[in-house]
């Protein structure tokens, strides 16, 4: 099975190397600092057998909505790389499957991608739960994988050698929010989260960091997925009187928490949600009740990162909607893979693995791509957004801020 893959790689080699040389010289060599290629057209139309890059992403199931952004980004990246001469001169062909948000299905699909579809390389799935499961498969077959849709640090605590983080670990999502709370003299915090891999990791990291920064955790509780009522939890929260409330949550529960907090008149000085708040639909669904709510974001369209405005414009043109940060992490995954292949100068997965572990490049994401020995992402910098009217400007860190934070959140009755 593997021999066939190798043969197909060898078959393309002479032409490939020639073209690769061209591309590399055009890009200014293969130093670790070489930027992810954003400039178009080097070697003309790609030739030869396609480089098959496989991924399974949730486009149905509970994470289907977010996964869709990642798929669109993968496809946009493939289209752009083909337009500028392909990968090592060969066209890129994406093989994208749907794991229905189910980790078990995900593992089967990566087995299929590797053994049946015989893909040359893989890109990561969406969500920490699925990524954690499928990384055992990619590790087994020694396929380096950029985890472009996952951030729970558990993924990198297993001494795996073939999985690499694209953006910050889930544990650090709320660091910016806590820093801001501390700056404003707040002392108590409550943490609630859905009981699945990513929200749990977010909550655990937030609790640890908050304690370290001198906060007192006055309330902490988890709730199941598909929850239909959080009024009892909010009643308890009210009694605990936290100054800061953070929710390790996705979109539906973030909206539910906000609605029921208003109904039961739970007032806090700062309210923040992990995934839900950064999505445009959060503001559309809640109207002005979304105001003052904070959220971490891995990327924002307003950021002045390398190639960002081009990325946003081409994404909007191709998909007819605004990219979400999940689009940007997916696109960055492609950019990093491309840079690693160019650095390795081949599709040899061992060399690509080497390249990924030493590479240091700028992508559309804020900060840089640079991992430690475990593959954990170290240099990406999450930003904090806040809903202000119909916009959600970046309010931190200061160097990237486009607006000042509005603080504190007024009581519901006086809004």
């Amino acid at each position, binding site marked *: 099975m593997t021999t066939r893959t190798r043969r197909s790689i060898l078959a393309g080699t002479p032409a490939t190397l020639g073209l690769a040389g061209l591309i590399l010289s055009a890009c200014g060599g293969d130093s670790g600092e070489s930027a992810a290629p954003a400039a178009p057209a080097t070697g003309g139309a790609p030739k030869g057998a396609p480089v098959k890059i496989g991924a399974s992403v949730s486009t*149905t199931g509970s994470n*289907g909505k977010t996964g*869709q952004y990642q798929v669109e980004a993968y496809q946009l990246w493939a289209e752009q790389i083909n337009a500028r001469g392909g990968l090592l001169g060969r066209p890129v062909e994406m093989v994208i499957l749907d794991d229905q948000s189910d980790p078990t299905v995900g593992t089967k699909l990566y087995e299929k991608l590797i053994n049946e579809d015989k893909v040359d390389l893989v890109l990561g799935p969406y969500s920490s739960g699925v990524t954690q499961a499928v990384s055992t498969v990619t590790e087994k077959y020694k396929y380096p994988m950029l985890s472009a849709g996952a951030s729970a640090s558990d993924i990198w605590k297993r001494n795996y050698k073939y999985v690499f983080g694209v953006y910050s670990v889930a544990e650090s999502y709320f660091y910016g929010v806590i820093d801001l709370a501390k700056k404003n003299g707040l002392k108590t915090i409550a943490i609630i989260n859905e009981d699945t891999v990513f929200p749990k990791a977010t909550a655990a990291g937030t609790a640890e960091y908050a304690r370290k920064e001198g906060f007192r955790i006055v309330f902490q509780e988890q*709730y199941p997925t598909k929850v239909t*009522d959080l*009024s*009892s939890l909010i009643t308890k929260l009210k009694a605990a009187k936290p100054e800061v409330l953070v929710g390790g949550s996705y979109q539906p529960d973030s909206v539910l928490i906000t609605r029921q907090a208003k*109904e039961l*008149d739970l007032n806090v000085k700062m309210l923040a949600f992990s995934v839900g708040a950064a999505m445009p639909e959060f503001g*559309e669904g809640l109207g002005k009740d979304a105001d003052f709510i904070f959220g971490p974001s891995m990327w924002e369209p307003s950021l002045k990162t390398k190639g960002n405005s081009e990325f946003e414009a081409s994404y909007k043109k191709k998909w007819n909607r605004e990219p979400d940060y999940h689009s940007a992490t997916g696109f960055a995954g492609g950019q990093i893979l491309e840079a690693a292949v160019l650095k390795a100068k081949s599709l040899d997965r061992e060399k690509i693995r080497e390249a990924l572990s030493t590479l240091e490049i700028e992508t559309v994401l804020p900060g840089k791509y640079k991992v430690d020995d475990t593959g954990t992402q170290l240099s990406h910098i999450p930003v904090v957004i806040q809903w202000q009217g119909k916009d959600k400007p970046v309010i931190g860190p200061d160097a990237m801020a486009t607006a000042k934070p509005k603080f504190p959140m007024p009581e519901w009755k006086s809004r």
Partner: protein
Amino acid sequence: MVTLVQVVVSGLLLGGVYALLAGGLTLIFGVMRVINLAHGEFLMLGAYASFFLFVRLGLNPILSLLISMPLMFGVGWIAQRLLISRVVRAPLLTSLLLTYGVSLALTGGAQATFTNDFRSVPFLSGALNIGEVAFSVPRLVACVTALVLTGAAQFFLARTRWGKALRATAQSADVALACGIDIDRARMIAFGIATALAGAAGTLTSFLYTVYPEMGKTFMLKAFAVIVLGGMGSFPGAFLGALVLGVIESTASYVTTTQIAEAVIYITLLAMLLLRPQGFFGLKEA
């Protein structure tokens, strides 16, 4: 004390929404002995109908019921005529498979047509305070609407000619047929009403929760728990079961955690099946 009252009030308001969904489910089971696994997807369709009527025409979701309920009645009527009628007398597994297939097809169709985007209707928010107890305005409106619709359906069943035909069909299809009742039509009416009620439940959830193609599944487990508590096939039983379940859920969430509350619901369900399998008002058979 205030907190306890608050928890019970929240539970009752939650139960109101469950009631509307479970009412239709139990009606279908009562009249046809069919367990409709696609019921949650009818809720989803109703939610989308209200969402689009709100976004495109700015129509008040409660008023949009005047459009969406007849529409959903039609959907149910057609579904019964084309699909369900073929399996009414077949073994239970056949109808389970069929309705499960319908559920998958509707979810997939919705994903293709409406995309997986999360949507919600920014309609009503906040609470009405009586003393220190907060009555969530959107949930109160939903609960009252559910009460009115369930009452109307119960009136139809108990007091009208076609309601009587439905009940006769439920008791014994053969005897009803012998007495000259058009049982096929009675079943289409039953399925139509049930679907319209599910659609109405969808309208109510559209401004309480987030609308997306798979939202139906969130509520279906609860709806099944409700009809087991209330008694399979009993309409008033479903209403009582829903309120009881809502209160159990919110009380257990308060005393323990929301996670444990889920378990408490299913333990209650199990206990009911062991001690009183016919539920509060169920038919004492099967």
